[in-house]
């Protein structure tokens, strides 16, 4: 006869102990992975995804310079730049939450798939808790979507399409840069003052998301002035010689050409338009005018003499005289020998804003950071709107600014700029002709040009 030493109670006890033992590491693991890429050591890694190759490589290089500078300032190195002028004093110059800031970089190549791949690699292999940078709306929308899925924060770089915080907005994504609607709203009164309200506009538009939204915005704001839109011609993104698109303008009866182009497209289309003598032409008894709604310093440099006297808009300009701008230009100029571009500025500001939000939230947890960036419901002065609520800050170069919680878009004054007639140096290419107050560029989150999207829920990625 044999007797078993197993008893029902013994099995239950052993099972309970073994179960608890097996569960223990999981409990610790789940605590360790409360959110994706929780920094566990004494450093935290940020991912800077910029075009390092391709046609926007120079703009990407400037963004990287700004990121490097922001990391230096966050770690307490250098002169502190805009940390000294920033209205929030949460950052102490000892990294973020006491962790030294490190960074990795990726190359977007200004291609959505390449940008997603590099962002994915920085998140999965390098443990980046935040992705920032970029010089294209197509890339921004693609990377923002990826960050939302992965559960990290995306602080957009240079992206001007309405869609980024419109139909493609995401809870984990934030944009400091202005958008196409704001360009239209800021430019319209200046265009009316300079060129009158009886004009016929011909649009050449880059055939992709940014071009479409910019054209729609500029057409809406100029038609509201009384201008007539004669034609809108979509041009391929790969086009280099725009002469066959410019030639029809000559006989169209239009007296204004609006170039909804960016980068190399804009340099070439503007050069071609000037070659064809459009700027010396008289139509309908008026001087023919050219408008470039979105300017960048690098484009202005590429366009050379052709840019003189042409109106456009900018998010920021190094020649502004507020304390934040002066501090940033001094830091950047001393380190690199030339003034920063608006792409560099927005990337620097986004890094500081992210770090500040983490510091205030007391954690890197994405949803807590989202809540900190959405602010306490404060409002900008002078804007009467129910959606005027979010995080208000100042001292970062654009005056009082609102990160609106409803769509994660920054609202601030917009600069109307003009190609300088007599530049004093190779950097002194644009002059600010008007600072359009924020209330004139304000729109509601459900404005038709931004409709169709939903922020959704923030994602911690755990």
């Amino acid at each position: 006869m044999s007797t078993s030493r197993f008893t029902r109670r013994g099995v239950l006890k052993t099972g309970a102990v073994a179960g608890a033992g097996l569960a223990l590491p999981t409990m610790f693991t789940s605590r360790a992975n409360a959110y994706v890429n929780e920094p566990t050591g004494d450093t935290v890694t940020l991912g800077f995804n910029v075009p390092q190759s391709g046609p926007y490589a120079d703009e990407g290089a400037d963004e990287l310079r700004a990121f490097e500078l922001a990391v230096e300032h966050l770690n307490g190195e250098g002169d502190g730049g805009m940390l000294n002028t920033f209205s929030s004093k949460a950052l102490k110059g000892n990294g973020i939450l006491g962790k030294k800031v490190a960074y990795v970089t990726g190359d977007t190549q200004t291609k959505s798939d390449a940008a997603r791949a590099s962002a994915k690699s920085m998140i999965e292999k390098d443990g980046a808790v935040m992705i920032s940078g970029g010089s294209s709306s197509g890339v921004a929308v693609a990377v923002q979507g990826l960050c939302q899925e992965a559960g990290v924060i995306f602080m957009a770089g240079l992206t001007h399409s309405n869609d980024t915080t419109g139909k493609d907005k995401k809870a984990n994504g934030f944009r400091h840069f202005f958008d196409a609607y704001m360009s239209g709203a800021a430019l319209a009164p200046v265009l009316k003052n300079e060129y009158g309200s009886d004009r016929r506009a011909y649009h050449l538009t880059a055939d992709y998301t940014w071009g479409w939204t910019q054209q729609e915005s500029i057409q809406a704001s100029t038609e509201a002035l009384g201008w007539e839109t004669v034609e809108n011609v979509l041009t391929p993104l790969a086009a280099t010689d725009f002469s066959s698109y410019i030639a029809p303008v000559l006989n169209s009866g239009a007296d204004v050409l609006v170039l909804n182009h960016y980068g190399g497209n804009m340099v070439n289309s503007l050069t071609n338009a000037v070659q064809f003598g459009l700027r010396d032409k008289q139509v309908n008894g008026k001087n023919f005018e050219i408008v470039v709604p979105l300017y960048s310093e690098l484009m202005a440099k590429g366009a050379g003499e052709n840019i003189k006297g042409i109106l456009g808009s900018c998010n920021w300009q190094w020649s502004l005289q507020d304390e934040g701008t002066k501090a940033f230009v001094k830091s950047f100029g001393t380190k690199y020998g030339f003034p920063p571009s608006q792409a560099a500025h927005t990337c620097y500001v986004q890094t500081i804003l992210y770090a500040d939000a983490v510091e205030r939230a007391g954690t890197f947890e994405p949803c807590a950071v989202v809540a900190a960036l959405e602010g306490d419901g404060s409002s900008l002065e002078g804007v009467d709107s129910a959606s005027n609520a979010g995080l208000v800050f100042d001292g970062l170069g654009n005056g009082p600014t609102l990160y609106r919680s409803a769509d994660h878009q920054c609202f601030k004054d917009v600069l109307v700029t003009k190609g300088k007639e007599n530049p004093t140096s190779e950097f002194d290419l644009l002059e600010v002709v008007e600072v359009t107050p924020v209330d004139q560029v304000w729109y509601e989150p459900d404005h038709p040009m931004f409709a169709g999207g939903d922020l959704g829920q923030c994602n911690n990625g755990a």
Partner: protein
Amino acid sequence: MDAILLQILNGLDKGSAYALIALGLTLIFGTLGVVNFAHGALFMIGAFCAVTLQRLLSLSHQVEVPGQVDFLGNPLMADVPYVTDWFGEATGNAIIDWSVPLAILLTIPVMLLVGYVMERGLIKHFYKRPHADQILVTFGLAIVLQEIVKYYYGANPIQTPAPEALSGVAQVLPGVVYPIWRIVYFCFAALIISGVFAFLQFTTFGMVVRAGMADRETVGLLGIDIDKRFTFMFGLAAAVAGLAGVMYGPINAPNYHMGMDFLVLSFVVVVVGGMGSLPGAVLAGFLLGILESFASTTWATTTLPGINQIIIYLVAIIILLTRPRGLMGRKGVMED
């Protein structure tokens, strides 16, 4: 009517660039049998010869501008080109103003040298390899060349303006104006193309090359070192591409990628014209330039959306289906 004339003129100057690049490609293919995907890069290097000369002529020393400060608050320094010191302000500025036409003098020897080095250093090792290998190695070379240019000159376009006297527009017919430099470009292209044809047609060297193109082996058996002549033809093709590039600078600001923008189109031009046919390359260049121009008109894009982006490829498909050897291709070339 004015609009039609303008689009024809546009097509002719677009076609000038296509024809010049395709001419060089055909010269290389016809003589050496190499499919050279680095040919667009040679066009780009030519344009950067103008950028380089412009920078050399603009080399400056700095002088302080009294009463003005730079962006950091330091005294503002203005650049004063050495040429204005040496030759006086008017002459010095005129030399800088004419840097693009002057760059032709720099481009010819530079491109002949680049072509020679490219052929002797790399491409000759691929003569007996399949076309796929040639395409891969020359495409790789094109990428290397453009990355080198990007490293030194950046990715941003760099303006190389036409001389003041050749800027602006000219009245070609009552009520029809056209940019002077584009007319200059077309005339320049016509001159180069005529020069190359005359060289091949009326010189002994050219006659030997043509004979070599027809039957390389027999020419070799006659004791003529045809390889040397073909190497020179590679250099000549490079120089033609370079000249096309240097004069193209004022039309569109040079950037490191401009060669790639033209490369695929130029290959289509060669295929449509007929592989190995020099007159075919020129004819197809102008023809496709004009077609592309008309396809970009508002009327065409409204009637057939997207036609401006596909017209050239559409024509290539039709030609290849109906006449596989191209418009003026010789029987037997690329048909085995």
